[in-house]
């Protein structure tokens, strides 16, 4: 299974303090890194910012140097049909294959509607999606 179908998401730890998102956004701006999508997961007293960016490794380096706790995670970007039933189709495939979703978020942009997924068996999931004829984002698409 080619690894190129897994894309690198940048995840960073964020204390629940004002200005954390702004600091992240400014760092990306300064480095000329494009943010395609992001989500914030919040818990008691802290959060995790997850983002798809144009140059994940450069982004990580920059954020680390600023003192952020940051890592990259393999996620899948599944192109959905941008019409009713698009999400159901993707969800059904995962459900039938018994693959568990850790988290997901969606965005709509120049690639159409994309569902970003972190799942417990990413390589299996990528293969199944492609067998079913769905298109996955690749690193070069970022």
């Amino acid at each position, binding site marked *: 299974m080619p690894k190129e179908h897994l894309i690198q998401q940048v995840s960073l730890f964020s*204390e629940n303090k004002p200005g954390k998102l702004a600091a992240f956004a400014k760092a990306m701006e300064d480095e000329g890194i494009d943010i395609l999508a992001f989500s914030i*997961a919040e*818990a008691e007293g802290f959060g995790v910012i997850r983002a798809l960016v144009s140059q994940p490794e450069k982004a990580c380096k920059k954020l680390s140097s600023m*003192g952020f*706790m940051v*890592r990259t995670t393999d996620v899948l970007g599944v192109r959905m049909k941008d019409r009713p039933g698009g999400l159901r189709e993707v969800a059904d495939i995962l459900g039938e294959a018994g693959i568990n979703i*850790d988290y997901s978020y969606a965005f709509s942009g120049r690639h159409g509607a994309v569902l970003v997924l972190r799942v417990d068996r990413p390589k299996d999931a990528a293969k199944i999606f492609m067998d079913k004829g769905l298109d996955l984002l690749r690193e070069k698409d970022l």
Partner: protein
Amino acid sequence: MDYWSPRIETMPVQDLKDLQYKLLKTLTYKLYSFSDFYHARMKEAKVHPDDIRSLDDVVKLPFMKKSDLRDNYPDKLFVTAREDVVRFHASSGTTGKPTVVGYTQHDLDAWSTSLARALTSCGLGRGDTIQVSYGYGLFTGGLGLHYGAERIGAAVLPASVGNTERQIDLMVDMNVTAIACTPSYLLHMGEVAEKMGINFGKDTKLRRAILGAEPWTERMRTRIEENLGIKAYDIFGTSELSGPLFTECAEQKGIHVWGDLALTEILDPDTHETVAPGEKGELVVTMLQKEALPMIRYRVGDVTTLHEDVCSCGRTSPRIGRIQGRVDDMLIIRGINVFPSQIEHTLMSIPEVGQHFMIEVDRKGELDDLLVRVELKREYFSDKIDDLMKIKRKVAHALRSSLNVAVEVELANPDSLPRFEGKAKRVIDRRQM
């Protein structure tokens, strides 16, 4: 005026001092002869029992500290034979290990007698029903008050801590006349009672409260007395000295420290010189009659004042004022002693977090909240909230079981918490009393 031990409580001051001197002299001979620890300590301090020629010579004797109990864990400082010990209690130590204290039957009797005198001086006795809402168990508060209250012939409701609504129901149904608990817990009960539609003044027979095990102020006393329509009395003690031992009398002019049981000094914490009468300083107590675990010049760590004038109640024992603070960094959270060093010790055993931490204490409503901020280590950062919550809960659980008090944990970025050179200031205490 009722006294429990009239002869001792109203003994002329000079006679009381003579009695204290005799007891001190006997104690030093006994320990010099029978305790390896005290023998070595006295040798080290170049003092022999023969050098104790007056009560003032107590200053020649070496100090004892909490760390001496820790270093001699669990019972190496006990002087009596193990089979003469009839009770143990334990309290939190400055590191992970608790400190253990032991009692002979005579020690328990003296403890109960001390509280019997104290409770009598607050106007309690037969016919009273006393709700003991201090923790029962290894903590000395519950059982100490329990036996003291039984000694004076009062009925005891051993409610311990928690389940506040049931405590209030029982207080109403059993016609409780007095309660012993921490001042913040009583205020909390007052709030809960109000929500239950119960008015302390009208719906209960509660008239007196014996409050302590945590610092409180005259302002809190006024609030408690006015809000609840009762009289509130300050109590003092610590497990190393037996447990809760001494209270104010009905005059509320300081805590009577019975002279036949304890010798009190107030010292400058730096020079160890006795401060001028009425000046504040570090409280140092010698227990004159303790058998199993004697305490000579124990540095309790509390800051207070000493008053030796005879009280208007007729009692001649010296009194100590309110505890005004600590000489060390010990915190009292919901009546439980917490040392920052215990937190450090616990964090060292958890690989996911670093050893730097900050403590923030707040009082939400009437109860204390303890927040510990710790740094998550980079290699344990996960983008899954679940993984991070697991770490947070693990730290909270470990701290809870070592401190015996509920802890809120906050994860922080590595290298984000303050570093200290020299004395660390890890505690932010926002409680206003």
